[in-house]
């Protein structure tokens, strides 16, 4: 296999406590730490391991979003991606629009494998990989916890509600990653220096078919209802008595 394409998204870091703006127009993102979506970091790590095992010769990382996203692309290059593609886009890019743009990149790059995170931890949509596979008319193996490549096939173990499911798909294919697929490497300082010299190209949305009008309009943001503060009990007996009084245990 020659090429793996990895798609990443810049999101609010998973450690940040999210607050909704008082006027309900969005969540507070000013001055907030931004990172590569953790699932996408796992996607990149998997691609790098495939290349390091000799399963691929090139790992290309791509993102769609404002100019600031180039920071995350540089991080991805420092992790070990060979080159990066930035598709500049301001404002909301819906999953279907993202899938269409990535399909445009696929037509230019012809990768044998595309790996994405199963969901971004900001919108929690869990759609883009599946949509890309549909538009590309290729297989999808979502929520992967293990990927084995042999020739022009991939055997993928998926985390499903019932347990673990294994699929075999023909390449090219789309894989989306779950948490336990791997543990992404840490970036070392010399790699950050090296990453500055790696190619980072810009591809305009207009060259990829454009971003259509949004189909799902956000009308309002709200904070979730808070649970009432409970009571502390002193020991197991008091707890069991409380639960019995409420009829929760017999």
């Amino acid at each position, binding site marked *: 296999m020659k090429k793996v394409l990895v798609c990443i998204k810049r999101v609010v870091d998973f450690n940040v*406590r*999210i607050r909704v703006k008082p006027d309900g127009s969005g*969540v507070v993102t000013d001055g907030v730490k931004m990172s590569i979506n953790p699932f996408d970091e796992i996607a990149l790590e998997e691609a790098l391991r495939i290349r390091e095992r000799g399963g691929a010769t090139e790992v290309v990382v791509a993102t769609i979003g404002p100019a600031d996203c180039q920071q995350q692309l540089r991080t991805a290059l420092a992790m070990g991606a060979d080159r990066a593609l930035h598709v500049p886009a301001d404002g909301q890019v*819906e999953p*279907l*629009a993202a899938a269409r743009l990535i399909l445009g990149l696929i037509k230019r790059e012809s990768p044998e494998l595309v790996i994405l995170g199963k969901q971004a*931890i*900001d919108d*929690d949509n*869990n*759609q883009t*990989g599946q*949509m*890309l*596979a*549909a*538009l590309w*008319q290729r*297989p*999808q*193996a*979502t*929520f992967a916890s293990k990927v084995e490549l042999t020739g022009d096939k991939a*055997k993928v173990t998926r*985390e499903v*509600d*019932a*347990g673990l*499911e*294994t*699929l*075999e*798909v*023909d390449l090219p*294919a789309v894989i989306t990653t*779950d*948490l*336990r697929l791997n543990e992404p490497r840490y970036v070392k300082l010399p790699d950050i220096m090296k990453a500055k010299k790696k190619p980072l190209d810009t591809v305009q949305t207009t060259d990829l078919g454009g971003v259509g*009008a*949004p*189909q*799902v309009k956000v009308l*309002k*943001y709200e904070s*979730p209802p808070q*649970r*009432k*503060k*409970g*009571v*502390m009990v002193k*020991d*197991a*007996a008091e*707890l*069991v008595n409380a*639960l019995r009084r409420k009829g*929760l*245990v*017999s």
Partner: protein
Amino acid sequence: MSQVLIVAEHDGRKLNPSTARCVTCASGIEGAQIAVAVFASQGAEVAAQAAQLKGVTRVLQIDNPANEHALAATLAPQVVALAQGFTHVLGPSTTFGKDLMPRIAALLGTTQVSDIMAVDGERRFRRPIYAGNAIITVEVAQGAPVVATVRTASFEAAPAGAGAPVEQQQLSVDLPAHTRFVSVSAAKTDRPDLQTAARVISGGRALGSAEKFEMLYRLADRIGAAVGASRAAVDAGYAPNDLQVGQTGKIIAPELYVAIGISGAIQHLTGIKDARTIVAINKDGEAPIFEIADYGLVGDLFTIVPELEQLLSAN
């Protein structure tokens, strides 16, 4: 008038309870006519169960050997062929629906609404983002049908007791051969299913090992509970992945949730916020889990769990 198509989740014999919850969600769309589609190799048994759900207008049974296993690449073009004339296509926000529904949405040329938690109008819904730390109200543009997944913990299951007609359907759709089912390894258990259990006992990293995690199964059996786990416990190998509760695991809404040795990361809390009563047992009194617990007990779980087991068996 809204015509809603629900894609049934099942294992070939039994309808998954997530489907009945989708029916309740669909019933919230004013004037909805609700059809449930059962894709299977032989779907009569499942179709009969779907036909009993209150609120269902009709059941469409699509038998095809290719539908033996629920592969998104195989099912999506069939659902699209069936979706003609429907205004909404819904599936559960389980791994089945999360895998399948976006593929359908893309083929229908629309973005999906993920994890509907409330219906505010024919094309207006509420859904959680940022692991449930914000709720957005969204409106889907006119044109393509609404394709959505339903956050099952937000809706009660529609009761059985009705009798909708079952229609056999033949679809002439070219199905891809590029995706093949190999195997599934599911833990066989007599315990209640985590996603639908009334009571759940859940353990975290503090359990320390898979052997020690076993004590939670004994406690769960005392009160007929399902067993769950935090991501940390699953990552550490104390419990299998299908027990994970949280943003990227299962979202559950039991009557009673007992979190044992779970500190309560926001990613975990989003999976249990709809539980009626939350109990937290943790040795760290500052753990965030206590902020949302109805009953908190600070102490050593290795002392408390055996005590609970004894107290609950004394009755």
